């Protein structure tokens, strides 16, 4: 289990990460979201022991991270990098050796992994001959092939098309099923919502959201109402707690409420003549929450 305890990191007058605390149990996936410069990469570097926190500490299975622990880590940095003039096979072997694996352990696995991620190219091809997407997949394989127990992925989905993004999701789920603790950052809230058990949103280095995806969404209340009824926009605006009314292209009204309770009055009024096709009161999506939190001044 990865335990991040109350870490803080400053560079001179800049506070990069502050008061950050979370746990990731084996088989759990955590999403780390936040705008550019919010402190995600610094957090990863602290976990990886590339930076030392001013306060707090990071524990892996109740111990500090050491060179021994390095062998159990799979790390995909934000900007992808491979040796362009080295073959796919040698590349994968080198990184696996640096993770403490023997060549003979990894060599038989390579074909299987290349197939699994549908890499277009032979293992004897030099990396530079591959397309960018395929290079990225090779890098993902190098992150996962040594069966790491702690997987850290910095923006793993950026630049992948939907088909490849799904391959990656499958790969992450497989590692999860094998009991790995996984943390990844993403700008795509759909990925986070689909994969993550819990998430943390950082803003200026501080966590502004922290918990399971469901809880976080619920804590914002079911304030978004999808409605198909006889009520006009003018009617709807008369109800207490209605902030705004919009219409989707499918002729469904979206009513933004101040509070979950505000929906009840509208429900009663809309259904007074019986059946209506749509009444769905939802918490805001992660994306909406993200935008709201990013825009808000939380001081």
């Amino acid at each position, binding site marked *: 289990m990865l335990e991040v305890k109350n870490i803080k990191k400053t560079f001179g007058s800049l506070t990069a990460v502050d008061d950050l605390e979370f746990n990731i149990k084996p088989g759990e996936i955590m999403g780390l979201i936040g705008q550019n410069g919010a402190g995600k990469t610094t957090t990863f570097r602290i976990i990886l022991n590339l930076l030392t926190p001013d306060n707090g500490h990071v524990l892996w299975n109740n111990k500090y991270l050491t060179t021994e622990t390095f062998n159990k880590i799979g790390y995909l940095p934000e900007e992808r990098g491979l040796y362009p003039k080295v073959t796919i096979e040698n590349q994968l072997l080198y*990184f696996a050796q640096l993770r403490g694996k023997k060549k003979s352990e990894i060599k038989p696995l390579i074909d299987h992994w290349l197939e699994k991620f549908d890499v277009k190219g032979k293992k004897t091809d030099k990396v530079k001959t591959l397309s960018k997407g395929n290079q990225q997949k090779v890098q993902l394989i190098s992150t996962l092939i040594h069966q790491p127990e702690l997987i850290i992925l910095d923006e793993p989905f950026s630049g992948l098309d939907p088909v490849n993004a799904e391959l990656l999701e499958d790969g992450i789920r497989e590692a999860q099923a094998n009991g790995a603790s996984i943390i990844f950052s993403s700008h795509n809230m759909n990925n986070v919502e689909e994969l993550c058990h819990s998430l943390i949103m950082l803003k200026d280095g501080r966590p502004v959201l922290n918990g399971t995806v469901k809880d976080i969404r619920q804590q914002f209340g079911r304030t978004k109402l999808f409605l198909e009824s006889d009520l006009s926009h003018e009617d709807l605006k008369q109800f207490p707690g209605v902030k705004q009314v919009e219409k989707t292209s499918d002729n469904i009204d979206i009513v933004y409420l101040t509070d979950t309770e505000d929906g009840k009055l509208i429900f009663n009024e809309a259904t007074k003549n019986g059946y209506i096709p749509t009444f769905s009161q939802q918490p805001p999506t992660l994306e909406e929450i993200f935008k709201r939190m990013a825009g808000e001044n939380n001081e």
Partner: protein
Amino acid sequence: MNKYWVITKEVYKKNIKSFGFIAMVLSPLVLVAVVAGITYYFSQEEQTEPDTQIAVISENETINQIFSSQDWDFQIDDDIKEESEAEEALLDESISGYLTAEVENGTVNAELVYTDDFSDQSSIIQESLSNFQTMLRADELNLGQEDVAKLSEPVTLVEQHVDIEEGSLTEEDFSDTIVQQGSAYFVSIAIMIFIMTYAGIIAEEVANEKGTRIMEIILSSASATNHFFGKLTGVMLVLLTQITIYAVIGFGAYIYFKDADIVQSALNQIDLASILQELLGFTIIFFIAGVLMYVVLAAFFGSLATKMEDVNKAVTPIVFMALIGFYIGIFAFTSPDNTFVEVFSYIPLFTPFVMPFRIAAETVSTLGIWLSIIGTIGFAILISFVSLAFYRSNVLIYSDTNLLGTIKRSWSIMQSNRKARKNNSQ
């Protein structure tokens, strides 16, 4: 396998297999081969085709015979019998000179008229004519062959060139100084070439890994120490491989060509053993320490670059240092006693360039040599560890500021990490 060796092996393998390495090893060999080929061609040319012609005008049969019978480095134009003809031929450049010679009362009177093309042959002609005159006189005096030989036997002169050193006379081995100066010169050029190449290689290695973010993967797999020293070892092994290749080729060429005339005559002029001894002595220590020092610095400066394109900019300070050292070395070649030279020979970064010349000129004591060696090696170790300390934080900085800015930021990250570690341990 230990991660240090994994890194060393990877660096070594990658570089040895690269086209750049093959080109780097071959280019000096090709150069040597071309120079040797040209030299050989011209020396053959000179021997086989003496294309300068002269005319010999003499009524003495023996003189005519001397010049027509012997094998000279020039040719005799037999058709010219008159001085006026010879003058004409000289004017239209069909001959390079003419000799008129007569014998009068046992004395040879000769006159040689010649152009630049023939200038280095005049002494041979004088010598042959003198010999002829000696024979004439010997005949006159009824002397036999042996008597002539006795008369012309040269005096044996034993030469002893001495130096006055600390109140006593010591024999100066003149050829030794030349050999030492030659090898000092050779070493300073070799250091320069190897520094330029290998500093470039390692700086590129480091900047490349940093620029492509491979560094972050590596430093989360192995310690910075393993990586830094693994890279250094890998590159130094590539260097050793290159030197070994030259040594093997040199030895092979020696075995193969040692019986050839041209090599024989060259070997007679120089003392191969003393050159090798000279090279394997202090010089090789300076060579290794010098290259090592600059390669470490190159790794450090390479880690300051953010992108591959910045590598050249990042290694400029090293190139300047090496150039300064090289020119002070050349200056030391001509004035090894200069105070300026003396001071610079003890500054570690310049020692490998300057000290070999001072040793060659014998202006430094053995103690001084060892002091400079210890200083250089100590400094190499010191900068290795300073570079390593910076390296860890350097590779996390991707800002586009200048070198100084990067060093400053790196320093602040280092301080912040150090402070944090101190706090944590309390």
